[in-house]
């Protein structure tokens, strides 16, 4: 059966959820062969095998942490040449998209980014994309070469599908450009203990209406009552009330959770671009005319400082 190369996003051996989703999609096209690079690469094998990887190609070298992007492109290219896959699937993280793009040029292939679904088709994999701030849905194919496709988080359900997951060492020779951009310092992001924004089933966001960093705990308390991730509009981020890593929208994260709760957010097109594909949308806003209400399944016109704490309390008491 045809093999599909899957690039693994992991943190020291812990496979991130979007990669497991990718394995679900990969199995629609062929047999997944995973490529895991860097520290802990071999530790990914058990989780990958559990979700359908027939083979796991691993390689670790100092270059992956010490230099930006290119060493990983060299390795993915080595895997591509070793496997001759029918498609290469990569998670849509900022870094992985760059890796995928450079690989595509090297192997003479087209690239599709940010797919939200993938099916097998007569002329190769067909990718669904959500464009123009998610107001359109397109179906496209790669027309030249081996399709390279990056896929957004939450595009498929994680499914257990045990496979061999045989670990093999990948042979990688770094090119001259691999050491072009040196990483001279790294400050890991502190964990908040909350789910990852792009992977969360529920996202609770705050905007300008939250009116100050000192009020964000109201949003966090609601998030925690639901086991949700916390998001913010750009207005809230630009004001310095919440970190940029939590920004939802065109220049922040795009999220597609089961439930999105927007508090004090007007619903500008750039914000909608990042959350419009959420399954259920709820908003609390004191302005009945706010455009966010055009999107909602349920909306409360009211002051978030009254509504949100009452909601949190009600949720906590129902949980008992």
């Amino acid at each position, binding site marked *: 059966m045809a093999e599909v190369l899957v690039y693994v996003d992991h943190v020291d051996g812990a496979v991130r959820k979007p990669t497991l989703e990718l394995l679900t999609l990969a199995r629609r096209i062929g047999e997944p062969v995973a490529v895991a690079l860097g520290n802990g690469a071999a530790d990914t094998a058990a989780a990958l095998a559990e979700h359908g990887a027939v083979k796991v190609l691993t390689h670790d070298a100092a270059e992956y942490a010490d230099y930006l992007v290119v060493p990983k492109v060299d390795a993915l290219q080595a895997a591509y040449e070793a496997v001759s896959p029918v498609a290469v699937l990569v998670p849509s993280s900022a870094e992985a998209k760059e890796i995928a*793009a450079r690989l595509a040029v090297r192997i003479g292939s087209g690239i599709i980014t940010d797919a939200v679904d993938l099916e097998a088709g007569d002329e190769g994999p067909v990718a669904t994309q959500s464009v123009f701030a998610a107001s359109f849905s397109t179906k496209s194919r790669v027309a030249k070469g081996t399709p390279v496709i990056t896929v957004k988080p939450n595009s498929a359900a994680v499914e257990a599908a045990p496979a061999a997951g045989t670990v093999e060492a990948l042979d990688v020779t770094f090119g001259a450009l691999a050491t072009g951009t040196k990483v001279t310092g*790294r400050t890991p992001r502190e964990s908040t203990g909350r789910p990852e924004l792009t992977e969360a089933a529920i996202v609770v966001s705050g905007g300008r209406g939250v009116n100050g960093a000192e009020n964000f705990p109201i949003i966090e308390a609601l998030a925690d009552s639901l086991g949700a991730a916390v998001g913010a509009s750009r207005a809230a981020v630009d004001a310095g009330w919440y970190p940029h890593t939590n920004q939802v929208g065109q220049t922040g994260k795009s999220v597609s959770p089961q439930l999105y709760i927007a508090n004090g957010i007007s619903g500008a097109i750039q914000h909608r671009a990042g959350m419009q594909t959420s399954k259920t949308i709820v908003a609390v806003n004191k302005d009945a005319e706010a455009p966010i209400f055009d999107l909602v399944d349920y909306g409360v016109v009211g002051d978030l400082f009254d509504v949100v704490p*009452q909601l949190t309390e009600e949720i906590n008491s129902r949980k008992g």
Partner: protein
Amino acid sequence: MSLRIVVTVKYVPDATGDRHFADDLTVDRDDVDGLLSELDEYAVEQALQIADEADDAEITILTVGPEDAKDALRKALSMGADKAIHVEDDDLHGTDAIGTSLVLAKAIEKAGYDLVISGMASTDGTMGVVPALLAERLGVPQVTLLSEVSVEDGTVKGRRDGDAASELLEASLPAVVSVTDQSGEARYPSFKGIMAAKKKPVQSWDLSDLDIEAEEVGLEGAWTAVDSAAERPARTAGTIVKDEGEGGKQLAEFLAGQKFI
């Protein structure tokens, strides 16, 4: 020697307009006003700041796009850039990211450069891959998605705020940089700047100037094919209640009904 900076900017349909597709499934550019992609204003701004710090620098704005893309070039020139190059050719219609990066790379090489600065993503395609593609094609370091950037003694340094970590990066010139919207507000063109821009040189190049064959680009040459585009059905109108003191509880009831609680 002078520091030669090339800033790549894209002319895009206004995101707040009613964007849609043309019959050939390319982005419709006729019915919605176009403008300089807001995210590329940040690239122009950082180029201006880097040029201010350098003893001697020259900023060239480069775009690949239709006739009207000149508006984007004028805007960047009015912000303070020195000159502009417009790659324009009927055969470019429908070119995808891989093709665009080919045209940009050839034009950058022809123009001559020490530093290329791009935006983080275009506001229409939002792929965010062209800067990496340029670095690959030009064979120079990529120092991308920077929220802070500076150039000193032939070295570019920057900070990349990623999901897992914030990284400090360094590469020697020539290099390709992309900057995010966290890099600092872009300046507004002054009246003087707008007047001065009218006299700044704008060169026009076509595919033959860049030794690119028509088959390598455009809709026919595209590396990807869009088979269909459908407008998302409008979300069905939801329930909207006014808070009369029980809004939080009503919302909890809704969430419980949907099994979120």
